[in-house]
């Protein structure tokens, strides 16, 4: 495992599986927390032992800091220069998380570049990009994928520290707060573990000065977090067999679980249909293996197994093709 800064570690979790080309609401939640993590990183690196309630940005030299730090600290420069005394931690975190969309994009780019230079993150095509509507509209769909062993090492280290008795490092205290504010807790901890985490965080609040200063602060935005939780819930629901059947009939409910690939000709046979699907997958750079041929072929695409069910959709003219449905159970 590499020695990563707090922002880099958190970004590997926050950016994983996010759309890399567009600023979606879910990604905005992640980026706001990434901006806050920059402030926490500065706080940890420049801590003088005088307490955690204030952040003194006046002594931080911009040229020395990382590029992604500058993306967050630059907009706060006027506050930093004009401030006669250090800013409060709450004030700093709130200002960082309230950056404009343009600034957040700049932050994303600089963090992604720093991770990419260490081979810790890459951009991969999302299967939804092969869908008729995305393909014909010329809308590319790429997403981030974090380096899996490094991602696992970061999340497992956090788990080990918080679920095990004993001291908790400052990085883990901050990481837990960031995970809470970005609404990622339930992705990493089981229901049983969540109870333990709640008890431990409560304990930390009373024992650890950093946790005492940090944990009462809220930077989350209700509407954005609600959208994130709703989309997460919807995706989970449509992975169930019954809901997957409904999604086959009404794919608009959850497009990512019901991708339609059009075939070149009407009434083409199963071999030609499969050939068209393979061509489309190749075009967008997916790795795939055909596990079973026939009327409903089974294809393993990017480590997930799909059934390619023949279907026609009707607009002004009927379009024949196949619908890729995840094979259940996974």
């Amino acid at each position: 495992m590499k020695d990563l800064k707090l922002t880099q570690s958190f970004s590997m979790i926050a950016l994983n599986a996010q759309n890399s080309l567009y600023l979606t609401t879910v990604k905005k939640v992640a980026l706001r927390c990434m901006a806050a993590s920059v402030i926490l990183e500065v706080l940890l690196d420049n801590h003088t032992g005088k307490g955690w309630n204030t952040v003194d940005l006046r002594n931080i030299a911009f040229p020395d800091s990382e590029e992604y730090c500058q993306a967050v600290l630059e907009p706060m420069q006027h506050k930093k220069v004009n401030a006669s005394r250090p800013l409060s931690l709450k004030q700093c975190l709130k200002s960082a998380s309230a950056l404009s969309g343009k600034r957040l994009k700049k932050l994303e780019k600089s963090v992604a570049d720093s991770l990419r230079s260490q081979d810790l993150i890459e951009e991969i095509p999302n299967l939804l990009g092969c869908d008729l509507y995305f393909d014909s509209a010329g809308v590319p769909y790429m997403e981030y994928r974090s380096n899996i062993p490094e991602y696992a090492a970061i999340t497992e280290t956090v788990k080990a520290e918080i679920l095990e008795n004993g001291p908790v490092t400052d990085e883990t205290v901050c990481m837990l707060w960031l995970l809470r504010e970005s609404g990622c807790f339930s992705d990493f901890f089981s229901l049983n573990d969540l109870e333990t985490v709640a008890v431990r965080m409560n304990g930390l609040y009373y024992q650890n000065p950093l946790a005492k200063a940090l944990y009462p602060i809220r930077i989350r935005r209700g509407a954005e977090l609600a959208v994130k939780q709703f989309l997460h819930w919807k995706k989970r629901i449509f992975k169930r067999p019954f809901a997957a059947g409904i999604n086959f009939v009404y794919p608009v409910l959850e497009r990512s679980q019901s991708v339609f690939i059009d075939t070149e000709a009407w009434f083409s046979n199963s071999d030609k249909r499969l050939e068209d699907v393979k061509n489309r997958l190749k075009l967008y750079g997916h790795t795939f293996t055909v596990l079973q041929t026939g009327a409903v072929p089974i294809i393993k695409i990017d480590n997930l197994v799909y059934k390619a069910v023949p279907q026609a959709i009707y607009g002004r003219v009927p379009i024949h093709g196949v619908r890729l449905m995840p094979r259940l159970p996974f």
Partner: protein
Amino acid sequence: MSRQRTMDVILASEYVSIGELVRITGCRYSTLKFYTEENMLPFEQAEQNLTRRYRREETVKRIQWIKKLKEDGLSIPQIKNVLQTAPKKERGPD
């Protein structure tokens, strides 16, 4: 409290925590916890706080050994048996 130790410091220290073992071996926390509870990984526990400390070199060697035995197709009870019956020198301190 304390900052996270860098990899260089961890790799130079005699004792490590379970979190640090996760970082240096790449194993899951739940796996290491299971090995510890099954007495496959020896540890020391200070009285005043309940933190488990592992001897870095011996524990990492033992984890690699367990991984190899698993790759050879041995089940957990068989691996435990091998670890217990191995000569003291190979087994490391209990």
